[in-house]
């Protein structure tokens, strides 16, 4: 069977970076083709070229054996090519339905083009329900949690009558439940003959959904795996070019007993009708935090960090109560937060890698308030090396890095200092396997140095792999706490879905 879409010899260069070199890709109708590769391998760039966001420097694209030139998103849509970007692109002031159907609103009244509100909302609710997004379709998008926003993006893509659907890391903020729902929808689309290009760093998902995998490395084709050959080891082998040994390393498993009590949170509330949240994190402990989408994990982190106003509650570190009214207070007290949404909260996209890494450590890099640029540069260089940030230089604008590399910069910004409590909100969103294991090692290291670590994650595998203890949230409350011994996927899901605590 001739391929549905076939790209040959694609080249694309950015100033200082050759993102793609002579890349080939073909996909059949009704096929799910996964594209994997390390951060900065060129996956997103390739997808953007297919969807008309970028123009290739060289190479041709054929669809149904006819050469096509896609000059704009609109043209791509005409051809039936739809891309969900790695980063969210939603209009926050419009509601869910408005975003799902943006640009394709059902209308009445002929040339007047009045919006048919009822049809709009009915259709939106239908699609949203299929994906498990049950929030009223009139909710404004900026009120949603990141995961919910990602579902809106997916709903939007699915609602398009596409022939080729490209999903660039659609599940990076989704929990397993939503991912499973998404997969069932994808399977349905597949039976309708729609081709799907799927990018993810969660290799387990790739194993489940992909018919075939194309691996990119350093902007070149690095190999291909067919159904049956797809497994974790083979994928990693092709991506990284070597085998990764221990993935979840907990070398300092045994806690060193310290004379400190760590952080205690008592009766914390940020919503009026909310039972208080109480927990402790001991020094040297890595505590995972699980929960369903919108369970309030991010809000809890924001409240601890002083971004969100708390209504009641007391936080003490090593027995000393601390008053946190703004992030600066939290940082002074030793609480750091690596935020969930890197583009809005984590990075200054228009600024350089160097400045982004140093921004939270400037007082230490200055004398009498004067910046010492050489020290700043040394720090940035060191952190980039440690986290394997792929960038042409530390002067590169962060917005030009690939998604995963941006995330590494956010981590680098905070991990150059030693906190008392480090809160990581989805720290490995969009990060490739190699870097992930590096990050886990770092967390382990920090814990060993006596920091308490709270890691919020939607990736259960990761939670199970690294935590000493897991807190589970459900609908804005703490549903329970599980020790390493009682940690299983079922136990977590039981609590996360509102089941009674068994302990």
């Amino acid at each position: 069977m001739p391929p549905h879409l076939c790209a040959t010899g694609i080249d694309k260069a950015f100033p200082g970076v050759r993102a793609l070199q002579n890349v080939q890709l073909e996909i059949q109708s009704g096929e799910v083709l996964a594209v994997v590769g390390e951060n900065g391998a060129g996956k997103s760039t390739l997808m953007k070229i297919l969807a008309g966001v970028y123009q290739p420097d060289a190479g041709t694209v054929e669809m149904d054996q006819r050469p096509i030139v896609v000059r704009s998103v609109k043209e791509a849509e005409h051809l039936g090519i739809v891309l969900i970007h790695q980063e969210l692109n939603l209009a926050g002031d419009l509601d869910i339905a408005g975003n799902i159907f943006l640009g394709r609103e059902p209308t009445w009244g002929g040339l007047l083009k009045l919006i048919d509100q009822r049809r709009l909302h009915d259709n939106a609710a239908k699609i949203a329900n299929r994906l498990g997004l049950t929030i009223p379709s009139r909710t404004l998008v900026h009120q949603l949690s990141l995961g919910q926003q990602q579902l809106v993006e997916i709903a939007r893509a699915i609602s398009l009558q596409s022939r080729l659907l490209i999903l660039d890391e659609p599940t990076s903020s989704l929990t397993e439940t939503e991912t499973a729902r998404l997969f069932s929808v994808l399977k349905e689309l597949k039976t309708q003959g729609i081709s799907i290009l799927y990018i993810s760093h969660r290799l387990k998902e790739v194993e489940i959904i992909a018919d075939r995998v194309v691996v990119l490395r350093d902007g070149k084709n690095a190999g291909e795996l067919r159904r049956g050959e797809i497994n974790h080891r083979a994928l990693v082998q092709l991506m990284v070019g070597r085998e990764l040994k221990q993935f979840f390393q907990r070398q300092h498993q045994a806690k060193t007993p310290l004379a400190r009590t760590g952080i205690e949170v008592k009766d914390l509330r940020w919503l009026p009708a909310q039972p208080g949240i109480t927990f402790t994190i001991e020094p040297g402990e890595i505590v995972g935090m699980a929960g369903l989408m919108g369970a309030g994990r991010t809000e809890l982190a924001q409240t601890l960090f002083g971004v969100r106003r708390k209504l009641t509650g007391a936080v003490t570190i090593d027995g000393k109560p601390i008053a946190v009214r703004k992030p600066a207070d939290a940082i002074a007290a030793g609480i750091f937060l690596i935020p969930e949404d890197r583009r809005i909260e984590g990075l200054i996209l228009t600024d350089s890698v160097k400045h982004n890494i140093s921004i939270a450590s400037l007082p230490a890099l200055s004398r009498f308030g004067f910046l010492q640029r050489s020290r700043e540069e040394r720090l940035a260089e060191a952190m980039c090396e440690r986290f394997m940030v792929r960038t042409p230089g530390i002067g590169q604008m962060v917005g030009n890095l690939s998604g995963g590399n941006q995330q590494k910069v956010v981590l680098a910004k905070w991990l150059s200092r030693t906190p008392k409590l480090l809160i990581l909100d989805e720290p490995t969103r969009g990060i490739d396997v190699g870097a992930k294991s590096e990050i886990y090692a770092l967390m382990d290291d920090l814990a060993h140095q006596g920091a308490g670590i709270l890691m919020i994650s939607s990736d259960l595998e990761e939670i199970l792999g690294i935590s000493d203890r897991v807190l589970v949230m459900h609908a804005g409350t703490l549903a329970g706490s599980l020790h390493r011994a009682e940690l299983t996927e079922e136990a977590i899901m039981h609590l996360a879905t509102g089941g009674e605590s068994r302990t």
Partner: protein
Amino acid sequence: MKKLTGIFAFLCLLYVLILAFTDQEAWGSNNFNLTKRIGIYGISCLGAGLLIVTGGVDLSIGSVICFCAAIFSWLVVDHHVPIPAAIVVVLLSGALIGAVNGFLVTYLGLQAFVVTLCGLFAFRGAARWILNDEIPRIAAPIADWSAFFNGSFLSISIFLWLLLGLFVAGSIFLHFTIHGRYFFAIGSNERAARYSGINVDFYKILAYVLCSFFAAIAALMDVFSISSVQASSTGNFMELYAIAGAVLGGCSLRGGEGITVGMLIGTAILCLLRNLIQMAEIKDSLEPVVIGVALLVCAIIDESLRRGLSWRDLLSAPQQLWERWTRG
């Protein structure tokens, strides 16, 4: 809608105060004056509001009003062009100016503030040049038109009827058609709109065209209402009043927010405020102070209600602020 309650309550308060300060037999005549002024000021405010929704801003409104008025009087007085034809030319010029602004902002990627700041200077100068710094004798040739517009229907000024017409059209456009929806989308996240296949450049240009087109209408209304054009003063400060009205009425200059009724209320507040100052015989020099402070109070109330505070919260706000302050 809810967020308009604050300024609507303020508007009502103003109106009650005006009534209190005015003799009863003058109520009718004062009402008529108010409808007239709201009519005239509201038009440019509506245009500015539509543009602000898309995240744009136009500082040149006042100068464009002056320029359009100058063209009109040049055509009518110096070249004896029939008035309807002159009106058409003026409206087209307005639209053209908007198109140029929009082109500069979209295709050349210039900042709206800068482009329209240039317009603020340039069009005022152009108006002076067209009129050659003279006072045109416009009153006589437009006497009939002026009489018509200064008249009333159902004891409401024709100007307000015109505004209401534009308001209905604008409301339908902004809140019920897909075009209006695209305005909001662009103002809220331009890239998202672009990725949704919306012709962002077209709609942004359209917004500038509408804004300047409304300014051209406002210019005509200004001429008809006072039968006079003066290059050095016509339209002065109108951009500030227009933007202030729109913002008072709930538009955010960050874009993506706004509602046409709000713009109307915002304009009305400005007009009533100035009327009240006269009726309460507040010292002339304090007039700007009162306007400034009232704007500020409105903005504070509006923002607080928007953040979900209740009226009761608001009333206890000073105390809370104080506590927050003293705590550290």
